[in-house]
């Protein structure tokens, strides 16, 4: 590394005050190698400097393996483990490899606790799809997910894709992985003294060095020069590594396991040592390398993919190495654990670094400002003064890539491998994975609502959690746990700091009220360029469960069924602040965001499940982006039916049809008498919206052709990408 007259720590962008803290805690000057170690471990990406203090506010009661590589929830005798992670910065410069290795990374987290990966989800954000560069990024990311996810045989079952100008320079690529493991077979990442350290997997090369620090700064016109900081994935090696790792973790003699992700070998082994308050000694000359002449710091910081670290007893060594051999994967003994409590690196018998591991893993913690920025008030008072006809609005909304069908995307993902996909993309608000180990179905969803979080970070984030909750409930799942990925701009700027802190509070309060623990999560900051900053985008992954396949609820409204709006009712004052409709049709963002009625949300869940259990329920669709009309269209399209609405003229307005009001669902039923009785008994307010019939959607004096609308909805993205 060229230091051009600067001290090494300066060249590595360690701020002076952090360097001073290193000096005072280490009580000496770090040598060059140690300085490199600090630069990676104290980066935002590894150290969570700006977020750690606030993440503690998220409730985790009820979660299992929290604090490990991925947390989870207990279903019977099995743990469903899940985590969402970002790979935003790499995807911005190299979309294919960025997205592919994003999957690789999150899969290893699931694997490290001994779980078999059973599903993948993703949340993708790009600039406007009409932009040529955006098309390149979108195509590359989808291709990367397709190439990598399909090869490793883990189905990609759900996701979301949005397009907004704010993501033009900083696309967001969040990937969630889900795994299953018997509760007695979970492996910890805690190191225990007196064991061998075995590295299994790919050779270590120079790729991805400084990846962690690259992910901790703003992108600019020079970012493409950072391309060597992007790791390259090998899905074939990963597939083989998955099988080998699961076989190795079956061994009793393997005491702990950790994957090599950001800051590679350094981060994995120092975290293991720190968690177990245990000494770790590595022999760097034993690490199998892809290229000659790598320096110790390069070996430690390399982010070469497809590598796992195991801590193994004497007796287990041969067994582990034999499994690696069976799968034709390199495996080397690269160190040992001891009682010293120190993190020691040696090369050809000479000690090259020695320091307490927790010094590396507990970087500085910053406090953020929480003052409300001026823009909040300014946007809240904005009013959208233009309007268009309902027909025009409907067509514009359906033909917008944000609302339109994502089939172009998910058709490229293998969503049925694994032989357990019960609810496929397009079949509901969430995906369903059959848990044959327990007999029921796991529900999975991933969601975000960045416009609302921008306008009102607290309520917007809260609404995002409840939206995920409704996605699961509408398909018949009981929500059980959350993972979150916090994508924000530069936290050193007060506006971003406020957005971050308030949305953490919103998520925390929503999860507490919904009684779902946050089992894992990830933070991605500095998602901004000199011109554009992303909206604050907390992505919520939520997992639910139902004990029988037969309890899944359809998302279709079929002919002769009656459709009801249940929950919050139509209200002339209801606004459409932060709605997709206003953004698409009026290029407008402003107004106030609806706030959720938490008690009603829970009552709605209970009532929907009662309707299902009494066999009264036909279909159910939750209301989110696209508002009441969006949900109605989704149900009718799936059921292939037109609709005769009983709405009055005064109720067919942009506000009422497209406003994103929380705490409500649409349901379709045959038996209106029994349904109304059950709703009344449970004190749920409702309104009959009309009946499914014919091939047209009739709203007061407006008639829309379902086939024409479906065509718009289905073809938008494909046509745009063919341009």
């Amino acid at each position, binding site marked *: 590394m060229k230091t051009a007259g600067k001290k090494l720590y300066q060249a590595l962008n360690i701020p002076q005050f952090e360097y001073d803290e290193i000096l005072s805690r280490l009580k000496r000057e770090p040598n060059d190698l140690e300085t490199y170690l600090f630069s990676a471990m104290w980066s935002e990406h590894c150290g969570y400097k700006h977020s750690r203090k606030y993440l503690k506010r998220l409730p985790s009661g009820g979660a299992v393996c929290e604090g490990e590589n991925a947390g989870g929830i207990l279903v019977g005798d099995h743990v469903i483990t899940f985590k969402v992670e970002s790979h935003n910065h790499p995807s911005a410069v190299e979309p294919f490899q960025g997205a592919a290795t994003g999957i690789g990374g999150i899969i290893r987290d699931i694997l490290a606790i001994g779980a078999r990966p059973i599903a993948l989800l993703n949340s993708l954000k790009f600039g406007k799809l009409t932009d040529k560069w955006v098309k390149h990024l979108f195509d590359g990311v989808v291709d990367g997910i397709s190439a990598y996810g*399909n*090869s*490793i045989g883990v189905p990609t079952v759900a996701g979301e894709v949005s397009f907004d100008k704010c993501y033009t320079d900083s696309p967001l690529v969040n990937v969630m992985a889900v795994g299953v493991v018997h509760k007695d077979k979970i492996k910890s990442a805690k190191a225990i003294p007196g064991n061998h350290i075995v590295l299994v997997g790919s050779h270590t090369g120079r790729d991805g060095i400084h990846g962690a620090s690259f992910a901790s700064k703003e992108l600019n016109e020079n970012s493409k020069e950072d391309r060597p900081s992007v790791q390259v994935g090998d899905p074939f*090696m990963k597939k083989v590594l998955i099988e080998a790792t699961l076989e190795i973790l079956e061994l009793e003699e393997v005491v702990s396991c950790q994957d090599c992700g950001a800051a590679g070998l350094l981060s994995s082994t120092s975290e293991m040592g720190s968690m177990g308050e245990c000494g770790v000694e590595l022999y760097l000359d034993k690490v199998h390398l892809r290229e000659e002449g790598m320096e110790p710091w390069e070996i430690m910081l390399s982010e070469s993919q497809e590598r796992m670290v195991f801590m193994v007893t004497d007796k287990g060594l041969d067994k582990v190495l034999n499994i690696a051999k069976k799968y*034709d994967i390199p495996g080397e003994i690269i160190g040992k654990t001891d009682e010293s409590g120190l993190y020691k690196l040696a090369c050809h018998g000479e000690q090259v670094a020695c320091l307490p591991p927790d010094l590396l893993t507990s970087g500085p913690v910053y406090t953020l400002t929480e003052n409300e920025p001026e823009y909040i008030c300014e946007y809240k008072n904005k009013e959208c003064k233009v309007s268009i006809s309902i027909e025009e609005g409907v067509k514009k909304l359906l033909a917008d890539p944000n609302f339109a069908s994502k089939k172009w995307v998910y*058709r490229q993902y*293998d969503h049925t*491998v694994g032989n357990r996909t*019960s609810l496929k993309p397009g079949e509901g608000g969430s995906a369903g994975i059959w848990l044959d180990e327990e007999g029921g179905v796991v529900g999975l969803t991933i969601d975000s609502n960045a416009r609302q979080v921008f306008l009102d970070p607290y309520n917007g984030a809260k609404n995002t959690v409840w939206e995920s909750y409704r996605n699961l409930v509408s398909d018949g799942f009981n929500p059980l746990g959350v993972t979150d990925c916090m994508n924000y701009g530069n936290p050193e700027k007060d506006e971003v700091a406020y957005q971050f802190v308030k949305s953490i509070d919103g998520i925390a309060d929503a999860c507490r009220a919904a009684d779902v623990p946050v089992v894992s999560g990830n933070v991605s900051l500095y998602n901004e360029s000199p011109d554009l900053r992303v909206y604050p985008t907390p992505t919520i992954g939520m997992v639910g469960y139902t004990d029988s396949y037969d309890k899944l609820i359809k998302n279709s409204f079929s002919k002769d069924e009656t459709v009801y709006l249940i929950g919050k009712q139509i209200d002339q004052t209801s606004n459409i602040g932060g709605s997709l409709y206003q953004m698409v049709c009026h290029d407008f963002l402003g107004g106030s965001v609806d706030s959720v009625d938490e008690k009603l949300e829970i009552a709605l869940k209970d009532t929907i499940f009662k309707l299902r259990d009494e066999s009264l329920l036909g279909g159910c669709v939750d209301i989110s982006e696209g508002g009441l009309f969006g949900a109605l269209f989704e149900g009718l399209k799936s059921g292939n039916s037109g609709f005769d609405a009983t709405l009055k003229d005064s109720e067919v307005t942009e506000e009422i049809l497209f406003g994103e009001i929380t705490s409500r669902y649409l349901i379709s039923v045959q038996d209106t008498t029994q349904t109304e009785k059950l709703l009344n008994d449970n004190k749920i307010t409702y309104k009959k919206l009309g009946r499914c019939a014919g091939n047209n959607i009739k709203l007061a004096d407006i008639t829309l052709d379902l086939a024409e609308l479906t065509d718009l909805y289905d073809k938008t993205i494909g046509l745009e990408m063919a341009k």
Partner: protein
Amino acid sequence: MKVGVVVFPGTNCDRDTKKACEHFGWETDYIWHDQSNLDEYDIIFLPGGFSYGDYIRAGGLATFSPVVQAIKDYVKNKKGYVVGICNGFQILCETGLLPGVLSVNDNIRFICDVVGLAASDDKMPEAISLPIAHGEGRYFADDKTLKQIQQDNMIFLEYQDNPNGSLLNIAGLIDRKNNVIGMMPHPERAVLKETGNTDGKYFFKLLEAEIK
């Protein structure tokens, strides 16, 4: 009934195929790619996935493996049925156990969907739907080969709405003389009710009938 499911490094439908076979009560073993004694099995499945990473060409590298050499003998000696699904079909074509090749889909993208199929065997319903998931599923052969395929009545599954540009809408081939079957659709993914589609059972029932 005893069946073997071949596992190459990179195979990813081995567990799915075993699960489906066991659903019908068939005794099922995994066969690691270095194995060469297959005589005890009534059916050998070559399941889907990316054998050896499918580097160079889908199914290409697998043809050099010990197990595929053993399969050639197994076929020659008429020991039982060989069924290649998806990557398995690609391997059978690369090996020459079935005619033609499977090339990149005509839209050059991976396709995962459920497709309507016409089945020619009278032990199966005329129309069924099965999942597909492949990037290289476009069946291709020269005119002479295609004519021969038709003459020998080898096409047992045809796409109703061709998703990938396969010639003659070919989705599956059967060589009745040598008991070799290859197909791009995944019947094993459509056996269990919890996957929402059980049309795959017709294929497994057909196999059962052939063996007995």
